[in-house]
């Protein structure tokens, strides 16, 4: 595999005020250029589902419904799946089953950072430090789940940090999802 062939898969969700979940999976190259984007229809758990799942409803919606639907529909699978703290509860389990994967955390807000290590659904992950493009003072921590003998995730992020802002695709996905959610809502209205 050539070094610049890494595909990064950004997984994020958007929740409306009516508790409908929209999921989005954006595939970019290491320059942050979008190559493929899949989004889901909005799913609104029923009262029965909400009651049965309780606190684990978010995790189930994300990892049992949204993420598999999006991931399976991709034309080409990413070399590294990425989530941020906003979607950690939803997609944490899914990432655990689809290594290599990583949780990206900006260090601008100390509450969002997880110090040197983080356990993502059972694995104790070491923090890797990356550049925050466009910021001279801030850094990004990445908690990467991967095979240590074959550190694809680390290599991909190491390459990508030089040419793109590792975090901005999450915002872009959420912007698109919120637009879709609004359009869906106004269509229904």
């Amino acid at each position, binding site marked *: 595999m050539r070094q610049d062939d890494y595909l990064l898969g950004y997984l994020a969700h958007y929740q409306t005020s009516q508790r409908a979940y929209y999921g989005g999976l954006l595939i970019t190259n290491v*320059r942050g*250029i979008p190559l493929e*984007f899949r989004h889901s229809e909005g799913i609104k758990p029923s009262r029965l*589902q909400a009651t049965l799942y309780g606190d684990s409803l978010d*995790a189930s919606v994300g990892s049992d419904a949204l993420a598999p*639907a999006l991931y399976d529909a991709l034309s080409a699978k990413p070399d590294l799946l990425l989530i941020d703290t906003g979607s950690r509860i939803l997609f944490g389990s899914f990432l655990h089953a689809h290594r290599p994967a990583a949780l990206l955390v900006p260090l601008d807000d100390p509450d969002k950072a997880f110090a040197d290590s*983080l*356990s993502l659904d059972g694995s104790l992950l070491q923090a890797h430090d990356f550049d925050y493009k466009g910021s001279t003072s801030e850094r990004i921590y990445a908690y990467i789940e991967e095979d240590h003998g074959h550190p694809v995730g680390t290599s991909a992020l190491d390459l990508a940090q030089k040419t793109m*802002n590792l975090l901005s695709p999450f915002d*872009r996905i959420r912007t698109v999802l919120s637009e879709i959610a609004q359009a869906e809502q106004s269509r229904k209205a």
Partner: protein
Amino acid sequence: MRFHAVPSILEHRRGFRALLLRKMPHLWQELPKTADLAIPRHRTPAVNAPDMFFLVQSHSALLGTFDVHVLGTRYRTNKNPDPETDPQGSPLPGALVSTDSKTAKRLSSYSQLYGLLYPPPNEVAVDQIPRYSELRSYQKMGVEFLVKSEHALLADDMGMGKTAQCSIAIAVLRRSERIGRTLIICPRALIHQWEEEAKQWAGIHITTVDGPPAIRKHVWESSPGVLMATPNIILNDIEVLRSCRFDLVVCDDVSLLKNDGKITQAIRRIPRVRSWCLTGTPLENNPEDIINVMEFVFPGLFKLPDRKHAPSRAVIQKKLKPHFLRRRKVDHLTELPAKQSIGPLALEMTGKQREAYCLAERKQWEALQAIGIKIEKFHIFSLINALLQLCNVYEPARQSAKAEAIKGQLADIMDPTQPEVKAIVFSRWVKTLQFLEHEFREFKPQLYHGGLSDNARKNVLAKFRNEGRLLLMSTKAGSRGLNLQEASYVFHFDRGWNPMDEMQAEDRCWRFGQKQTVSVYRYIQIGTIEERINQVLLRKRGQFDQYIDSMAEDTDSLAENQWSLTELIDLVRPTEK
């Protein structure tokens, strides 16, 4: 509390969920429907993307059907209308029909949102386009507007940096791998300036398409980067161009797009995805002109009959709004020194110049009368031009009241103690400029007109900027697009038919970067056709907003559209003594 303490709770929850799923595996009846936002790709690799490992054809109203290949999977979209055969059809790209359920089809209709998935301009520019940070906030907004828009009319006032904004927007799109082949159409006079500004602001190398047809054909067919050509070259090469595809076509001389001429039609026929126009022409003026321009920017936005009879202003503005951006100097360049308009100063011809003028006026009038009722507008044009040139100078006797007046003023302002003061004299006629070159020789003037080669023009401007103090410039060749902030005095040696030309000429100096007050002088000869033209212009000043843009660039279209035969005859009627 350390976060690695959290997993035990998560483990517990996961266990509970797993238990639930074992009991009720179909709690989520089926996975949610998903859809693909088709991300269009340019057809030619961008500078920093030499290894495209997939091909996705661009979509466009102008490219007909919309086949998309994403990493080997082929999708097909609804058929787009052909602008040639169905100019009134919806120009929006069709929605994807790649998925198999109604829900998925509906979700796919959001494909136009794909633009939001790209990195924003500031992110792309942060390392790769260093001068982006030098842009003012309104200019950054302009870049964002262009980057977002497939169909854009950037109508900022003259001198607000449209070229810089456009260059950076092109660079952002190329760095984002959203466009490849790009074509910029501009008048010959602007080519060097475009080349320099694009390089300076955005590091873009522009290839100018010029020379013999065989060489041009080769460049059209093989050059993948940013190309630049004049409108005439486009007209000559349109058959070759029809088989080319451009991701972006920028037209930086919008005035020629206002009519339905051959050049305009050729430009409209260039296959393209994005179309941008740059112009300082205000939106409010002459709605049909704007509608014609929009036929290039966004084919099919207005219906065919609208080009002749514009709909209401509200309708036009509503349709234009998403594709139109205009900012004014007074709002954004508050530090720009004032522009002072002086005149028109009334002068009186004397001696042989006066005699020659009266004689010509009388003789030509008699000739017109002999034509009688068959008189047409074009009969009057040669007379008008001859009289206007006589108002400038009577060549045999080398007499010119205006030249004498301006010479006196130049002597005052070109004081050796103020070496930084520079002036430009505009005239419509090269012959007049050549006369002035001799008359004003003590000021060592530079002469700039359309007859000069590209290199000669470049040298003239460089010389004027570096060491020259006086530039004699043809209004037609030099009034649009150039940056000449070095000069702070402008003399209009003769009055144009088109007030917009005069404003354009003045704004070569009165623009971003000007540090001194710009003084603009106008002159008219008393008792001549100039005085009458000026009166007509003043009379029509009340409707200036509608009028200013509607006046065409040349006398032919002027006569066709804006001046009645009676008005023209009145202009050349000899003054009664």
